[in-house]
């Protein structure tokens, strides 16, 4: 099982976390068109390599954490 570096709990099994996917820049609320919102909702880079992701520590500290993970080897490193 892969382990994720939680900044509050230390390295923990991935099964404790909920995957929230790659970090995508949120469009500006004031000016975004419906099409831009839908692109933000649905479209992803889906890169084969290092990706910045949000995870939620469901069975732990219940905080969102940001993890850098390689999507082929599943190696991880903490980003904050």
């Amino acid at each position, binding site marked *: 099982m892969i382990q994720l570096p939680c900044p509050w709990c230390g390295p923990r099994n991935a099964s404790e976390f909920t995957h929230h996917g790659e970090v995508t820049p949120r469009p500006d609320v004031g000016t975004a068109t419906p099409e831009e919102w839908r692109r933000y909702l649905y479209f992803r880079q889906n890169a084969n390599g290092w990706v910045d992701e949000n995870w939620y520590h469901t069975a732990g500290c219940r905080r969102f954490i940001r993890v850098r993970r390689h999507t*082929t080897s599943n190696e991880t490193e903490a980003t904050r």
Partner: protein
Amino acid sequence: MSVGNGSHRAGNRNGKRRPQRYSAFGLFKRGLSRSDWPRVWQERPLKSTYDVVIIGGGVHGLATAYYLAANHGITNVAVLDKGYLGGGGSGRNTAILRSNYLTPEGVRFYDRSLHLYENLASELNFNVMFSQRGHMTLAHNDNSLRTLRWRAEVNKLQGVDSEVIDPAQIKELVPYLDTSTDTRYPILGALYHPPGGIIRHDAVVWGYARAADAHGVHLHQNTEVTGIETADGRVTGVRTTKGDISTPVVVNCTAGWSSLISDMAGVDMPVTTSPLQAAVTEPVKPFLGTVVVSGTLHVYVSQTDRGELVFGASVDPFTSYSMRGSLEFAEGLAGHVLELMPAVSKMRLLRQWAGLCDMTPDYSPIMGPTHVDGFHVDVGWGTYGFKAGPVSGEAMADTVANGRPPEIIAPFGIDRFEMGQLVGEKGAAAVGH
């Protein structure tokens, strides 16, 4: 649609030798002479120009090539695969076929596929071993039972044989299922779909490859695409590890790599890639006559003609391009199977594997043209791509030949995401097979 012997012959121009037809008599003759069988398809040199280049040599790519040749007479076609034919999702799925979906669009589409599968063996002259043994989706709570009833009604309206049955009827069909009420997840009912079943997935790939090859389609294995050339918003060619090809039409029929290939053409995709794991046990005598699926327990079980139990699960809980199996999958799977069928507790797992699934936000595929002229996609097949192989090939061939998608795949265009018109097939496709 005109396919069969006549068009097989018509497709063989340039004095190419027609492949020998398989028959019982031929098998007998071959058995007496003990000579080798001829190669099923030919290795041909990569040309510098093709009318159509199809990326991905699985069931979708080969079916598209076959129907382009058989239905539309377009035979100057190359199918490229970076590995071997049928080595991706086509060889890693659990070979379950069904058409009992939730949305009318989905039911129509998958039912057409099922009908093509029913006639595939005679059309391709290749035994694809389709066994329509029935397909059963279990409900363990009121919510799933309600969705099953909904699906049954949608199915009936579309002319698909599908009904909700109670635990007593389930027990009659599959005596080894634990239908008692004192389990953790008691079985409340099931959606029974008699035309569903299992098929030999490799045979489908080989059958399409052989038939496409007979029409003069070039099949290039170990040929990885490294780039797609575009000019003025049009596709002009494909770069591969074996050389460059100039072509006006590229069809992306890959699974797992669909967003990376689309990236090469500058087309963004609403796709995330996750592994899906499956496993198979040692063979035992036949005891499981239908396909059994449980959405709540994330498991589907069928027994192959050889007697092995094939298990599949839902996709792994995070995105990845890794195709390694994991212990927690095997543990979870075993627990869930025993919950359903305690009698198999002594059976041993032979092997487990993973395949890549391109998930879309609405659990429906992405098919048709893109904003790059000549670049077509047949991707986003999630966990339900294999059962849609024939209809996708037929529809994509139609799209390429006529320049616009046929009505049956109109709801699956990539523009639906920017328009906010999603198809919403999650209720029937999230786990179920």
